[in-house]
């Protein structure tokens, strides 16, 4: 990706971030309104609040980072190096692939254990494992058609 393409990419990202933040804020206000009228599930409401507030904070951080980069060419190049460094991308992909493989093996081992102790949990884990394999297969087909 060239620097010009990267600039266009982060300009598009800025629009997505604003739209996403607006949607999340509207969702959160609506959620708060319903929760205040029906205080039944404190764990659920705390969980949703955490995810929504965390997502808005993360989006806002990226928005500010992009905004700063779009101000000068020097800032743009620094952000380009941070986000598009090819070695970093290879490390991220390899780490993600390895961690996914480890998680799949762990899930299978846990499923075997629960087959003898708690069948319902075993079924849930097996379902998650099979779904992961199906999603992997679909992603594989999609990516191989793209490349």
């Amino acid at each position, binding site marked *: 990706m060239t*620097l010009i393409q990267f600039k266009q990419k982060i300009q598009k990202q800025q629009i997505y971030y604003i739209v996403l933040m607006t949607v999340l804020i509207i969702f959160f206000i609506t959620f708060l309104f319903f929760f205040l009228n029906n205080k039944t599930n404190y764990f659920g409401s705390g969980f949703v609040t955490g995810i929504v507030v965390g997502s808005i904070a993360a989006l806002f951080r990226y928005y500010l980072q992009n905004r700063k980069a779009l101000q000068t060419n020097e800032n743009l*190049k620094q952000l*380009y*190096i*941070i986000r*598009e*460094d*090819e*070695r*970093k991308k*290879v490390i991220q992909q390899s780490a993600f692939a390895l961690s996914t493989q480890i998680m799949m093996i762990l899930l299978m081992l846990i499923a075997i254990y629960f087959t003898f102790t708690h069948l319902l949990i075993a079924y849930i884990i097996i379902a998650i494992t099979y779904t992961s394999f199906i999603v992997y297969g679909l992603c594989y087909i999609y990516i191989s058609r793209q490349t």
Partner: protein
Amino acid sequence: MKTKIAELRKLHKISQEELGNAVGVSRQTITSIEREKYIASLPLAYKIATYFQLSIEDVFDFSDIQEEL
């Protein structure tokens, strides 16, 4: 893969950070290429070679690959 990047940097009196900034990668990436831990992509190899006004073969050592052919 062996490279002459470290020698060329010394010759041109530039740091890894400066070379990284010029070709659009981090200092750590240049370090890894110099230490033969990471193989640069073709576009990056081209950028590095162009920066030193040389061809890719002058900067990167392809003798191992040539032996395989």
